[in-house]
């Protein structure tokens, strides 16, 4: 078994044993990301997304003892969410079209000028980004979301992480490089 995900495995083990502090960490680190993932898979259907998000977490709490650390805990949660979303599409007799791309290739556009709104609003691209974030180490993910999604200052993040301004700048730079690497693989099947 890989030791890469030992932290996740330990966290899952503690939550399974009923440790509420561990559960608080688990929920704080994953709840919003899983919701974002679901809402984009459902192309912005918020009400349905909330329902599926609740089902996902309830199922995850019950199945947590079966998590063996074979991937990141967040990816494991996405797996459960993806199944729930597929069931939703099937129940409603609709095709899961969130992952079907459009003719314009975002791989080329990412390196050129500013990304057009038409591409930026594409659910498939957002889903890929959220999936890619799950594969990053926890501190990379936290820093990227705090800086660019929550638009917090570098000083603020440095205070939260107990690091210097320079260290956080460097962390953000490494996190973006890592995200770019993961994302380029994931965009191949867009």
């Amino acid at each position: 078994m890989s030791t890469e995900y030992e932290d996740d495995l330990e966290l899952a083990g503690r939550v399974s044993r009923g440790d509420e502090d561990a559960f608080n960490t688990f929920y704080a680190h994953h709840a919003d990301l899983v919701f974002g993932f679901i809402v984009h898979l459902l192309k912005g259907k918020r009400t349905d997304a909330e329902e599926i998000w609740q089902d996902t977490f309830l199922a995850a709490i019950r199945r947590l003892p079966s998590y063996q650390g074979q991937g990141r805990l967040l990816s494991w949660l996405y797996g459960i969410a993806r199944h729930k979303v597929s069931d939703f599409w099937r129940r409603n007799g609709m095709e899961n079209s969130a992952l079907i791309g459009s003719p314009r290739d975002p791989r080329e556009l990412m390196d050129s000028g500013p990304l057009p709104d038409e591409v930026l609003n594409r659910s498939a691209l957002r889903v890929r980004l959220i999936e890619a974030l799950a594969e990053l180490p926890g501190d990379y993910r936290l820093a990227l979301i705090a800086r660019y999604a929550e638009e917090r200052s570098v000083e603020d993040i440095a205070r939260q992480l107990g690091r210097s301004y320079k260290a956080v700048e460097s962390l953000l730079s490494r996190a973006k490089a890592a995200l770019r690497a993961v994302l380029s693989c994931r965009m191949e099947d867009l």
Partner: protein
Amino acid sequence: MNQQESPYDRNLEKLIRASFGPDARLAPETRNQLYRRLVAELRETRRPKEFPKGILALFSSLVFLLAVTSVLSVWETGVQWPQIFALNPFGLLVLVNLAYLPISSLVIILRRKSWASA
């Protein structure tokens, strides 16, 4: 730092911002609601499973009835009380069952008290 940023980096930042925009954010109340539900679920799974009380009560009642019937059938033959228990082992079960009721009640009262003080 901004001066060194490539178009890719700027697009990445834009994409992160767009992916976690207001349409993809949870309402705090919804977030707290599920939190409370999950904590309750977690506490429920942590609680040790108890032997089903209904089955225990049914089994106890059946044994009690069997024992009473058995003792009565011996008593009808005119045997004296102390001998009934000697002749019929089911007679002992009557005593055990009679003792079980106050003991189990006491256990329930004590457990309720310990839950209340927890």
